[in-house]
């Protein structure tokens, strides 16, 4: 086995006419492609020498079939030189700085020599020509030449001043480019007449030809790889058929590629140009044909040049020519080179499965039978491999293909599998089905961060969807409303090893964005944990053992409670503690803690907290406090989960999450939990108080309006009177909603499902709740109350100039009570803004991220801790000034000294 070949570099340059002829295998003359029988016409655009794309046929040049035949270029002799449209600007720039007679750049000879040497040395050192310097040179030469054409006043009177070229003394004329490709020279004759002469492509070519190498270098052209005159085409390379395959439709009609169409046009006009020139047609006709040929060549290269109509297909669709093939999102670069299609991948809908480990992914049997892993037969596994092979492609797991040397055998066509089995030898490679435990990559688009592609272990399952643990929804940003995800099977041992050690879900629990767990409990798990770890949760032996076995724990702790009859019971906290690693010590406040809010009593009662808002864990035992979102939720740093991750590592964290998920599922199923419309029902008394709050608020608004009308409202500095009023009204109305919400909250206590979910962070917030139960509140568009619509009013239901709450989009109703038609309309206005905003933001932020990644993709941390780009320039001497990987940090800290001190000092006490 030899080492793979590596490409060290790619040189860009221009092809000379000679080179084009040399690399050509066939001169193309005939504009037709195929004859009546569908055979390629010799010397036509589909000539067999250009390679073949039809299966079974052989290439006339290399005698290979279409797979191995790379395709070969032909060429087309253009009757007159043609300007390559891509270089038009460069050509124009050059013509503006060189002499019209001797083609030298308009700088002093000494200067040219000096600058050329500098540039050459620069290129040797850095590999490229210094583009800043080149621009400078060009600007200087242009200034020089311009001053010869239009001398400044001071020089005009100077008798010694020469108006000619620095090198040959020729008088210079102004060069003008008429879009897209015509050049003209403008000057005044001695008689004072203004004259405009055309510079034909041939003349341009001649001027470029005479540019010496040094001068060309100053123009930014390295003559080792390109000569300026090559930017004008004498010969057109004809790409191989593989580049422009024709397709045969079902009806038998052949449809040619856009490029072929364009080449046909070029050949046709070229031929006519030739004939007309031969027959001595008038100059005018020849020039018209020349222009037409230029047009076709231009559109062949780029069909979106400004100033000329794009060449069109018969159907009226603009042709997709060379430039269009390369550029843009669907172009060759972005869609075929930067990103490529791959084999060994699958895609289907995802659905949840809380019984899977976070590291696992459920793969449908049908997919597992198609995706394969190559496995090399060795002396040590040959028996196992034989077993597999005999199963054939229908086995469970089975084998789809085997490779013997270069030969591939598809087992689905093999009748006698035992023959294959008996002939299996070490060195053969079998492609066996995916089976439990294989490492695969799992991905959901948009892939916004590295946790969008993680490695999972396969678990082959029935049905047709990919299954995943709910804790990994967050990093993928997946839900199950029809989301699809992709799966890739690494094919080499190196790839598998890398995926396993670096990309496994458990290795990605900590996000590099802020160094906290991004994977954790969500929604119902948080609710379930709340119920399980509440003080009064206790269960009998049967239930306790059910919970523990669900979490794969087979030892029963001693009961810590008993019922009134003295029957032992197990508290939820104890059962929860069974999953915590031994030796874990941590104290924290959870979301139920009210100490920070109640100002009068700032001292935390800790374990005696009435709301169980203080979590204490000692030696892996939950002593007090409820576990809620702040305890083990996704995207919450400094939680119990985070501490487990930091102190016990990824494996322990995975075990904790897997176990707790299973236990909580059993608990919430057993207990039951639901939310219904009655959860947002407020009793009559509450409804009346809410109405009162709203009434008061509206009265206040009216008072404000009256104040303003009476001129009593005081203007806030920097704002107009109307703005002041608007701001005050908004303040009043937003407090109305808040107050109404608070009233409703009084009536909805902690026995209310919706309140529970909001308070513990499982789903929703109190604002959502108060909108449902009390009052939806003010709707806004662009931060202001709704104001547009009809003249001076939002809807014809109101008077002109009405500034009251209702007229400007205040929704009195709650979602529970239902919105009036007007309110519904106002709510839709606000809702629509939200939708538009989301749509705009995704595209903007997507582009921003693309630019960020593109600018920074080459940066990497080196062995000397510097961060460098691909050319080795130092961007940072030390990453982030301390070389800390944020993913491995503790919420941004390299060292969490508080935790360490706590740990060390507590150890001592324990001893």
């Amino acid at each position, binding site marked *: 086995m030899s080492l793979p070949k590596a490409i060290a570099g790619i040189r860009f340059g221009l092809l000379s006419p000679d080179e084009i002829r040399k690399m050509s295998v066939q001169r193309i003359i005939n504009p037709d492609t195929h004859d009546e029988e569908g055979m390629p016409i010799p010397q036509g655009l589909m000539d067999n020498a250009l390679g073949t794309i039809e299966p079974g046929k052989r290439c006339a040049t290399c005698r290979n079939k279409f797979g191995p035949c790379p395709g070969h270029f032909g060429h087309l002799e253009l009757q007159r030189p043609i300007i390559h449209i891509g270089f038009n600007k460069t050509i124009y720039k050059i013509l503006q700085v060189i002499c019209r007679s001797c083609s030298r750049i308009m700088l002093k000879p000494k200067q040219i020599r000096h600058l050329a040497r500098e540039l050459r040395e620069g290129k040797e050192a850095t590999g490229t020509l210094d583009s800043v310097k080149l621009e400078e040179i060009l600007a200087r030469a242009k200034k020089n030449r311009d001053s010869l054409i239009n001398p400044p006043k001071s020089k005009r009177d100077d008798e010694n001043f020469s108006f000619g070229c620095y090198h040959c003394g020729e008088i210079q004329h102004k060069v003008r480019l008429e879009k897209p490709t015509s050049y003209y020279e403008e000057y005044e004759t001695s008689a004072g007449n203004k004259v405009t002469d055309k510079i034909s492509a041939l003349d341009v070519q001649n001027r470029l030809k005479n540019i010496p190498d040094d001068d060309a270098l100053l123009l930014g052209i390295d003559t080792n790889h390109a000569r300026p005159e090559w930017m004008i085409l004498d010969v057109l390379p004809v790409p191989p058929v593989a580049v422009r395959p024709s397709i045969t439709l079902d009806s038998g009609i052949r449809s040619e590629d856009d490029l072929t169409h364009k080449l046909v046009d070029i050949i046709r006009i070229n031929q006519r140009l030739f004939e007309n020139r031969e027959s001595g047609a008038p100059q005018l006709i020849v020039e018209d044909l020349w222009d037409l040929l230029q047009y076709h060549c231009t559109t062949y290269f780029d069909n979106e040049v400004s100033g000329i109509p794009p060449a069109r297909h018969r159907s009226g669709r603009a042709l997709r020519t060379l430039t269009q093939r390369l550029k843009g999102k669907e172009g060759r670069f972005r869609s075929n080179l930067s990103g490529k299609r791959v084999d060994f991948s699958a895609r289907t809908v995802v659905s949840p499965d809380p019984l899977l480990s976070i590291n696992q992914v459920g793969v449908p049997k049908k997919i597992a039978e198609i995706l394969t892993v190559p496995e090399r037969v060795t002396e040590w596994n040959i028996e196992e491999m034989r077993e597999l092979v005999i199963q054939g492609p229908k086995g469970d797991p089975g084998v789809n293909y085997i490779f013997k040397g270069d030969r591939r055998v598809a087992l689905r066509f093999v009748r006698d599998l035992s023959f294959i089995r008996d002939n299996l030898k070490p060195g053969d490679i079998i492609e066996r089905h995916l089976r439990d435990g294989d490492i695969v990559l799992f991905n959901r688009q948009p892939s916004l961060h590295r946790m969008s592609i993680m490695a999972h272990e396969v678990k082959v399952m029935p049905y047709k969807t990919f299954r995943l643990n709910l804790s990994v929804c967050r990093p993928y940003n997946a839900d199950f409303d029809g989301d699809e995800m992709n799966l890739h099977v690494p094919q080499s041992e190196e790839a598998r090893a890398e995926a396993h050690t670096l990309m496994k879900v458990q290795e990605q629990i900590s996000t590099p964005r802020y160094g906290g767990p991004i994977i954790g409990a969500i929604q119902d798990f948080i609710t379930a944990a709340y119920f399980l770890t509440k003080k009064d949760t206790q269960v009998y032996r049967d239930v306790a053992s059910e919970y523990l076995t669900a979490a794969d724990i087979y030892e029963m702790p001693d009961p810590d409670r008993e019922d009134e009859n003295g029957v032992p019971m197990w508290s939820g906290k104890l059962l929860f503690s069974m999953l915590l690693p031994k030796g874990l010590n941590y104290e924290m406040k959870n979301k139920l803690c009210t100490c920070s809010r109640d100002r009068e009593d700032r001292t935390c009662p800790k374990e005696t907290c009435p709301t169980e808002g203080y979590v204490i864990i000692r030696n892996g035992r939950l002593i007090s406090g409820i576990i809620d979102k702040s305890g083990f939720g996704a995207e919450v740093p400094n939680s119990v989960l985070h501490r487990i991750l930091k102190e016990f590592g990824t494996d322990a964290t995975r075990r904790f999450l897997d176990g707790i998920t299973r236990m909580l599922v059993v608990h919430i199923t057993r207990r039951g939990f639901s939310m219904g419309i009655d959860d947002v029902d407020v009793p009559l008394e509450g409804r009346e108080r809410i109405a009162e709050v709203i009434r008061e608020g509206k009265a206040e608004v009216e008072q404000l309006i009256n104040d303003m009308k009476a001129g009593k409202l005081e203007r806030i500095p920097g704002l107009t009177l109307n703005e002041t009023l608007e701001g005050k009204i908004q303040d009043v109305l*937003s407090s109305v909603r808040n107050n109404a919400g608070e009233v409703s909250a009084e009536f909805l206590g902690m026995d209310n499902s919706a309140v529970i979910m909001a308070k513990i962070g499982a789903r929703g917030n109190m604002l959502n709740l108060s909108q449902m139960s009390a009052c939806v509140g003010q709707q806004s568009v662009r931060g202001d109350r709704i104001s547009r619509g009809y003249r001076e009013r939002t809807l014809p239901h109101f008077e002109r100039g009405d500034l009251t709450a209702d007229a400007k989009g205040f929704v009195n109703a709650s979602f529970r009570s239902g919105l009036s038609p007007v309110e519904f309309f106002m709510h839709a206005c606000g809702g629509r803004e939200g939708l538009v905003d989301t749509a705009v933001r995704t595209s*903007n932020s997507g582009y921003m991220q693309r630019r*960020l990644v593109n600018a920074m993709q080459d940066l990497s941390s080196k062995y000397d801790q510097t961060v460098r780009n691909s050319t080795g320039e130092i961007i940072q001497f030390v990453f982030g000034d301390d070389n800390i990987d944020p993913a491995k940090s503790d919420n941004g800290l390299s060292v969490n*000294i508080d935790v360490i001190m706590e740990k060390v000092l507590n150890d001592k006490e324990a001893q």
Partner: protein
Amino acid sequence: MAKEIKVKDLKAQLNRYIHSENRALPITVVEEMQEKILKRAREIEGVDSDDKLKSTHLTQEQFEKIVEEVFRSFKFAQMDAGTAAGVVSAQSIGEPGTQMTLRTFHFSGVREMNVTLGLPRLIEIIDARRKPSTPTMTIALDEDYIDMKVAEDPTRTREDVANEIAQRIELTTIYSVAKSIDIDQVNLQITIVLDKVLMEDKGISIEDIKKKIEYRRSGLKCITDKDSDERIHVIYSDEKKSPTLQELQKLKDKLINISIKGLKDVPRVMIKKKTNEDGDPIYEITSEGSRFTELLRIPGVDPKRTYTNHIHEVAETLGIEAARNAIKREAQNVMEKQSLEVDERHMLLVADIMTQSGEIQQIGRHGISGRNASVLARAAFEVTVKHLLDAAAKGERDNLVGIIENVIVGQEISLGTGVVDLTISLDYRKYAQKDLLKKAA
């Protein structure tokens, strides 16, 4: 009971770890350790100063253990060589972009100036726009200057002085102090009626205005009205000249915008009263519009604590290192306001790459991406064809050192496990055996 470390020995003990050969820790970490250890000791003894401390309440053994743990934790969090730091940072900043909201209803209370935040602002920073859409300066005042002024004239309060400084900053035009500006068609002159209250507010006298007009537009003369000193007439000093109405109209338009005082581009300032740590009132000025270089020359402004969100102005006045900090700070501010948590190291890397060349470069085609050494990388980003054609004319060579280039040609990229250049010899068994034999012998 084990002996406890003395307070005075703590520092020496800790300092060993700053330059130690195999136990080196960053100075910030060491300082934090010292602080936290002493804080705990203070709490135990119930004293408020380190000088009064009797002991650190740490045994040598405990201390060693803490250092051990700190070092292990520090070592663990080190970034591995070959980490794609750039991509990780880019993603860490880009990904929250999708989560940003325009939470406009968040502003309640007396609304302040509207400053662009969220995604538009983040894009603005990364784009290195010449001018932010809402330039703002946060101006700290020189307390010594205020003290001095108050001492000079005890009738004035500190607030008066702060106001005076604010007046020097805010742009004042004739328009902003005039009740009316009219063309007097009879006498062919322009009559300006001034608002005395406003003038006092802005600290301008009539003489100031007259002087400014005469200074700014030569050939003009200002005369105070005989009957009212609130009224001034502007006439041409060349008395023979009788201006046409059109000329007067033009002149009027020009006069309106003549600036009398303050910085150009700073149409509005606001004074905020704050309290410092000692509970004394301090004044801070925020401005709409930014003119950083000129601002720092205004007496009474404390240049050390004054800030602008105009990054280019920071670069021009304070240099590229300051601009780097400004970029980081601005980006961080955007994230904080949206309560999105992003590690500061990511922002720092973006700031560093934007300022690496010595001037602020945009993230994108006209900046960093446009100056990539690789033709293929540039072509793969934007304006594909132009880059390819230019490379051909220049005879450029792509050395395939970057990431995207190697993706394009289908080679291993130099990140992560791909950075390793060493390859194991195919005959390694032979050599390994030799080595083993040697060892055995």
